[in-house]
């Protein structure tokens, strides 16, 4: 990738980080935190975005961030108080800034009206401080125009007692003459006198390099003035004694260009820039020689002693001893002490060391560790098969190896683990926007933002969570008036909490709204033909109806919740992550969705089973229970369809051996084991297997990456004995979606698709 394009990508990544800092800081300030470092961080975040935006010429972004930065600078300096009103404005501005960033990144557009309104509000805030903003608060001389004046002192040699007043009078006269010279074309000659002061060298500027810069503007003729050099014993090598007179000639050289060369050393030197044309060049040359006899160095030292900036421009009446020098030492020492204290304090709060690593490398590492785990398991198995004693040194060594491998795996998984904060942090803004759109008052509480989840899981959490939060506000919470009438506080609460529980990640989204309207939900399910009217359902079961495919309570497609995106899609997303979702609700009090997710997608809790001599793995999260079918419970519905009665309902009985093409004749169910599984939308089936081998955590290997997608199979793994086991895609093997109970649904066919292309064994690949 073109390096500049790569940096642009980095820039937008950094912008996201800065936006998060910005919002976090503003929220902290809103919450009452007065730490000045937070205000600084907030300022820096916007400042950074502006800087990079400028580098990439992103004008809209630059303009808005500039206005924002200006206001923040005034808050940082204390000129504007950060009261609640102001903070609300800043938070909204942060949202607009985020819009600008994303528009710049994705090529979209920003709500112009909102952006201008926000910019105006920010400007009003800033200018309320009486001429605030990034004003040029410097020396106040910016309005002055200095005309170079040729000082013709050629008469001084003849009249040594001439007073300063006389000289100045003559100079004034010369100004008029000089004015007449302006507008001359062709070659221009500048006479430059340059006498550095010690400060210039202390700041690491170099006269030679400055003269070299001048030489780039035209032809130069340089004369060195060593008159200020004391003899060797009195000389301080770090002091400034030398001066230069330079004649610079070239076509159309502007004074600004000459001054520009010295822009950094302005104030650290005596600088005289005088324009001359060919005619007076000769006179001036003589003047310079005359001036050379004036003790310029004494003048400069006097100026230094007087510590008046720019004093060197005005010739003082006499040189006086540099009495000011010792006085300078004191302030320097005090500054030193202050700097040390500051640096120490900063070091104390130093943040923990982090490094940035390519995600590819981490993924590769995790892959390798997965292989390590498999190999270690295989080794253990082989050794066991050799019949070695459990207590032998080899067996014990292997135990240690297993322990270590497990620890390595945990550590490596932890590398990719990120706090859910990265997903959660977009929600405060989302909640603000939806609350505004629905006219509801909402407070968002987030807990457990530091809970760590594997990166692969985190990225896919965002959409389902967003949808549920939208639902909670749009459907769950009542309007402020309704809440008041119900004796609740006007402000509704949505709570988002993340925690680790028994080896899984649990995320809860709860609201204190109206809860699930059960009669209505049941009616809708009946209306949509999802359940039969006579079906008896518990409260919990009614609540879970909302997850069924095709269910949606929105009478009109609400702008907020999106078109037809129902809870069934959410559930499918969660299930594809290997997770489960549940709802519990109390009418009038609110609802809580509970998501349970595996810690990582790379590893699966599975039940190892055998079917027709093949070893398969079924994801444990999909399995509800396993049972031994009794003949009396099994009914035939047709030539190829069977159902089994489980408590009050019947579910299809599916011979996976046939589904996957391992066999054509189904053995009697009573000889095998039935696994009751639940697929998407809550539909259930019983999968027939020959035997259960046990439960095991297996490392997932992608079939698509190493071979190709196979219907009915989600992935593969390698067992301890080195054999490949295929991991079942539960939803796929369940075939046409059966419905709970004997509703209007067609029976399943229990065996169905042509998998003759599927391999029945797989050698280890990749």
């Amino acid at each position: 990738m073109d390096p500049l394009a790569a940096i642009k990508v980095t820039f937008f990544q950094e912008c996201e980080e800065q936006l998060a800092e910005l919002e976090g800081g503003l929220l902290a300030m809103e919450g009452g935190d007065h730490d000045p470092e937070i205000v600084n961080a907030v300022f820096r975040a916007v400042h950074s975005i502006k800087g990079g935006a400028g580098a990439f010429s992103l004008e809209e972004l630059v303009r808005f961030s500039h206005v924002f930065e200006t206001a923040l600078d005034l808050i940082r300096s204390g000129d504007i108080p950060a009261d609640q009103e102001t903070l609300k404005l800043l938070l909204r501005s942060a949202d607009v800034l985020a819009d600008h960033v994303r528009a710049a990144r994705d090529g979209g557009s920003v709500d112009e009206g909102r952006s201008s309104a926000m910019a105006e509000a920010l400007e009003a805030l800033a200018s309320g401080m009486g001429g605030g903003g990034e004003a040029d608060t410097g020396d106040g001389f910016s309005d002055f125009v200095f005309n170079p004046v040729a000082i013709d002192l050629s008469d001084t040699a003849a009249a040594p007692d001439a007073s300063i007043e006389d000289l100045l009078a003559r100079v004034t006269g010369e100004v008029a003459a000089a004015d007449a010279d302006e507008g001359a074309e062709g070659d221009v000659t500048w006479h430059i006198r340059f006498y550095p002061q010690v400060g210039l060298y202390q700041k690491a500027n170099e006269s030679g390099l400055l003269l070299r810069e001048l030489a780039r503007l035209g032809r130069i003729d340089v004369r060195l003035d060593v008159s200020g050099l004391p003899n060797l014993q009195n000389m301080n090598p770090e002091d400034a004694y030398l001066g230069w007179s330079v004649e610079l000639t070239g076509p159309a050289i502007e004074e600004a260009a000459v001054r520009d060369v010295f822009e950094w050393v302005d104030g650290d030197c005596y600088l005289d820039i005088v324009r001359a044309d060919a005619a007076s060049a000769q006179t001036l040359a003589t003047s310079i020689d005359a001036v050379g006899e004036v003790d310029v160095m004494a003048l400069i030292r006097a100026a230094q002693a007087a510590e008046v900036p720019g004093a060197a421009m005005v010739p003082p009446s006499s040189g006086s001893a540099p009495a000011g020098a010792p006085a300078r030492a004191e302030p320097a020492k005090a500054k030193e002490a202050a700097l040390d204290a500051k640096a120490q304090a900063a070091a104390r709060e130093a943040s923990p060391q982090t490094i940035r690593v390519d995600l590819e490398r981490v993924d590769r590492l995790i892959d390798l560790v997965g292989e390590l785990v498999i190999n270690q398991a295989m080794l253990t198995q082989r050794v066991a098969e050799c019949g070695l004693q459990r207590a032998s040194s080899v067996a014990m060594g292997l135990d240690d190896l297993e322990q270590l491998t497990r620890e390595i795996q945990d550590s490596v998984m932890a590398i990719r683990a990120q706090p859910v904060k990265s997903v959660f942090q977009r929600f405060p803004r989302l909640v603000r926007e939806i609350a505004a759109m629905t006219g509801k008052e909402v407070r968002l509480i987030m807990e457990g933002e530091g809970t760590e989840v594997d990166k692969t899981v985190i990225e896919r959490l965002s959409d389902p969570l967003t949808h549920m939060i939208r639902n909670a506000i749009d459907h769950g919470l009542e309007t402020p008036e309704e809440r008041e009438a119900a004796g609740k506080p006007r402000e509704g609460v949505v709570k988002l909490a993340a925690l680790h529980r028994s080896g899984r990640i649990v995320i809860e989204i709860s609201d204190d709204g109206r809860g699930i309207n059960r009669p209505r939900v049941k009616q809708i399910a009946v209306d949509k033909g999802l359940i039969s009217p006579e079906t008896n359902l518990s409260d919990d079961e009614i609540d879970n109806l909302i997850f069924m495919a095709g269910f949606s309570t929105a009478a009109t497609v609400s702008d907020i919740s999106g078109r037809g995106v129902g809870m069934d899609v959410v559930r499918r997303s969660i299930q594809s992550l290997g997770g489960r979702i549940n709802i519990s609700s109390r009418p009038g009090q609110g609802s809580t969705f509970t998501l349970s997710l595996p810690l990582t997608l790379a590893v699966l809790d599975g039940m190892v089973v055998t079917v027709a001599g093949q070893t398969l793995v079924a994801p444990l999260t999909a399995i509800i229970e396993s049972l031994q079918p009794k003949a009396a419970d099994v009914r035939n519905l047709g030539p190829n369809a069977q159902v089994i009665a489980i408590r009050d309902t019947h579910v299809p009985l599916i011979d996976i051996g046939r589904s996957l093409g391992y066999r054509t004749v189904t053995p009697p169910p009573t000889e095998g084991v039935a696994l009751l599984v639940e697929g998407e939308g809550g539909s259930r089936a019983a999968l027939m297997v020959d035997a259960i081998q046990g439960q095991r955590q297996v490392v997932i290997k992608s079939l698509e990456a190493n071979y190709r997608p196979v219907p009915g199979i989600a992935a593969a793994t390698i067992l301890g004995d080195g054999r490949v086991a295929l991991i079942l895609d539960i939803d796929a093997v369940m075939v046409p979606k059966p419905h709970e109970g004997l509703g209007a649904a067609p029976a399943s066919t229990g065996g169905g698709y042509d998998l003759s292309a599927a391999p029945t064994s797989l050698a280890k690949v990749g």
Partner: protein
Amino acid sequence: MTKTILTVDDSRTMRDMLHLALTEAGFRVVQAVDGLDGLEALDAAQADVIITDINMPRLDGFGFIEGVRKNDRHRATPILVLTTESDTTKKQRARDAGATGWIVKPFNPEKLIDAIRRVAA
């Protein structure tokens, strides 16, 4: 001999842009992420020129410059600050702290190299 430039900036974007422009011009670049990091990197870097931002966490540009000037080996190392166009106060404050000169953001690579040429042979 290849010159070394120490760049100090908390923005990764800025660091990358400086790195690109400077390495293409033939310089060797050492990076630091804020003023404290810069002071720590100072001796090992053996920089011929230092370029630093002003607004940084932990230790800002001014503090960093003062720290550099107190280091004997770097009393005469040119330091250029990255600053925005109109901020005269900051420029003056940087110079008071000991900065040699400044580069205006956003910079183009030619201006950057020009500035460096002004302070390094």
